[in-house]
């Protein structure tokens, strides 16, 4: 029922760095997210690919050493920090290389460094990213009115309204909504297990 649930955590598979499939899968999930974050930070397109690559490699290299140690915090916290600092380092490096870009990079660096909540917002973005992935997945699964019921109830429609709107019985409304909620929850948890190694 869930493709991800049975899979071994990517973090665990990264410990074996020769696992080419694992690397590819790793990239499949992380690359879009990292790209998304970098775009959010207005990373110059000339740097984007380099930074993306560097972040991915850093994460991949360090994953085996990430041992769920509570002191290190959650994987996503650590990842947020890696993304932030890799970007800052790259900006600094490029600053020295491209004199013409100096002022632009300077501004960006300043914005990033002054943003105390950058790591936190990256984390939130990661959460949203995972939730959206899960929603995509269950949208494929649920046909008919289930997703509509879910969507309407998310938008603060009462059960009676939904029943009326979709021409359903009240308890059918409830039942459908609950099934979607449950499925979504399972999806999110499965993704977390796969990508964050949450035990």
């Amino acid at each position, binding site marked *: 029922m869930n493709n991800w649930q049975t899979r071994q955590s990517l973090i665990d598979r990264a410990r074996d760095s020769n696992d080419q499939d694992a690397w590819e899968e790793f990239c499949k999930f992380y690359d879009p997210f990292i790209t998304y974050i970098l775009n959010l930070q207005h990373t110059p397109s000339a740097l984007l690919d380099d930074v993306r690559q560097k972040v991915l490699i850093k994460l991949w290299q360090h994953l085996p050493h990430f041992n769920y140690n509570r002191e290190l915090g959650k994987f996503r916290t650590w990842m947020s920090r890696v993304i932030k600092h890799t970007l800052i380092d790259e900006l600094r490096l490029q600053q020295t290389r491209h004199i013409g870009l100096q002022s632009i990079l300077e501004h960006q660096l300043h914005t990033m460094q002054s943003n105390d909540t950058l790591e936190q917002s990256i984390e939130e973005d990661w*959460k949203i990213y995972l*939730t959206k992935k899960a*929603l995509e997945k269950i949208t494929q699964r649920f046909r008919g009115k289930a997703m509509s019921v879910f969507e309407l109830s998310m938008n603060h429609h009462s059960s009676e309204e939904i029943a009326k709107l979709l021409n359903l019985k009240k308890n059918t409304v*409830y039942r459908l909504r609950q099934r979607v909620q449950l499925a*979504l*929850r399972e999806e*999110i948890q499965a993704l*977390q297990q796969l990508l964050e190694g949450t035990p």
Partner: protein
Amino acid sequence: MIDSFSREQLLNLFDQAENETAAVDLHHQNDRYLDKLFIAEGSMKRVYRAYDSVVDRHIAYAELKSSHCEIKREAFLREAQLTAQLDHPNIISIYDISTSHAATPWFTMELKTGQTLAQQLQNSQQTQTILHSRPLRLEQFLKICDAIDYAHSKGIVHFDLKPENIQIGRHGEVVICDWGLGRMVSLDDHQDLIDADAEQLELYKDVTMTGKIKGTPGYMAPEQISGSQPKSYQTDIYALGAILYTMLCAAPPLSGDTKTMLDKTLQGDIVFPKQRFPELAIPESLNAVIRKSMSLNPCDRYQRVHQLQHELRQYLTGFSTQAENAGFLKELMFFYLRHRLICSISLISSLIVTLTVAIYQAHLNQTLTSLELAHERINHQVELIQKEKTNAQQALDMALQNKQWLNNLVLDNQDQLTKSVYDYCAIEIYKDPIHAMNRAVHELTLLRDANPSKPFYSTQLGYVYSIMQKFPEAKDAYQQHPLNKPDIFAPIAKMAHLYSGQRPLPLDGLMDYLNSMSNGHHPLYCVRVLSYDAALRNNRSEHAKLVHVVLKIWNPNWTEDQFNYQPELQKLSLAGKNLNQLTYHHRSSSDVRNWDLTVNIIGSLPIRELDLSQTDYYDFASLQHLNLETLDIRNTNIHRLLNIENFKSLRKLKLSKNQIPQNELTALPSQLEVEFF
């Protein structure tokens, strides 16, 4: 669609998933439980009938009345959680409980259609109905007990048991509800409640102040009112007693205003069913059960619910109850009621059997008495015999001991004894034959007994017995170790056969014997036989004939023999040719046989005068041992008087003329008278 969700909504969904809160649905509980319909109201909660849209059934929905009081919220949820721990067919099932932070705490439970026990009892007040429904009520009551026993086993006490809290379903199911006052007690110590926390006490105060008593007078135990005793399982047992009361009588134990009821409860002033409703004919067993359950002191009540149940089951199966303190007769009556026919048959059978047995017993007793007497007598005799046997055994033991000791002594002195025996036979027999032979027998017996394996001593004993003319004894002795000398044994056996026990033996017999023995037997034996016979036989003439026989044995060439003994003169006259041996020089020098003596063959006869004048005897010196006074040697071949000086007693010597040389005659002792013919 996904894009229509706000950032917050998405984060929210993630957080919910991550925290795994089941609370998703709680946000929508207002949608889940629909069509609420008010059923009842207690001091703390309102109960609705509601439709559970999720599982599609009707349930009971309980809601806290005033949700602002934190203590009450706590107590309310506590009731639900407490009840939820009890999984029993006779206890209301809790389905779901709201979160503690819900605006209005609630819980759902199974919806019981039907009536409460209180309502049922209210509707059946007629005596006939009460009587008819008694078995049903007892069944229901046992189910109530089941539930409470179960709760107690989980350490939970109800504290508010009453007919109003007992639901009777349409199909007879009994369910205990309203565990609002219930509490956990320590399972380790069943008597004491875990101290109610301060809040709980607060709750009590509060409720009391509002004027509504927690619990219902009549069903409340005294300790619940006074607090004098710790509340415990027995508090529920009191209530159970009261419920049983109400169920059996369709009336509560107490009535009147609250104050009166509380006072009566405290004083234990309760009129029990049997007195209060005589028309209901409540059995003493049940009355007693109620009385015990409702004892003023918790210690006097049943300690556990199952004990109470057991008593009721005893009653239902026709046994007496413990509470009743039934005596033997009452027990008997219960027994009789349970088994009427069997009892009657048994009773008659018993009577017949008893009578038969009694008659037989009397008869038996008589027999028994005489048997006992006989037995006693026998015992006494057995005792005596036993005693004698013991004594005999002791004597025997001692004898055996002595014997052993004696045997050892004999063995130690065996050579000496053997020597004595030889001495007795070879020497002493001529001096004092009786004594000598007795001694020989005595000592040989000792030697034989000490050496049972040696044939020598028994043979020797046979030899001595034969000298003594004791032939049967001699035969026995020889037979102990059969000899390979039939020429000795056969004559003895013959004598034993012919002359058993006769002494002295007839002359003929003895003469025959000596003649038959002579062959191969030492002639000395014959002289010894003579010596003993002389002592044994008073008739000298007869004895002399025996001497004649023996002398002939010694002198086998003696012809024309004449032997004439005159006892009165003590004179022996011999005649014939070739008579040459009257004495025998017997010499031996071994360790045990050491002697040197001259045996006088005719010595057994007292002889003062010997007449040899008609013989050709030649050995003068041999005659010196005969102790003669008169000796006639005329015409003999004696020509010298050698050793004449040794003839101490000789007084007269008869000689022929010129028989002895003159010079010898002159040397003769002066006292000796010599006659010449």
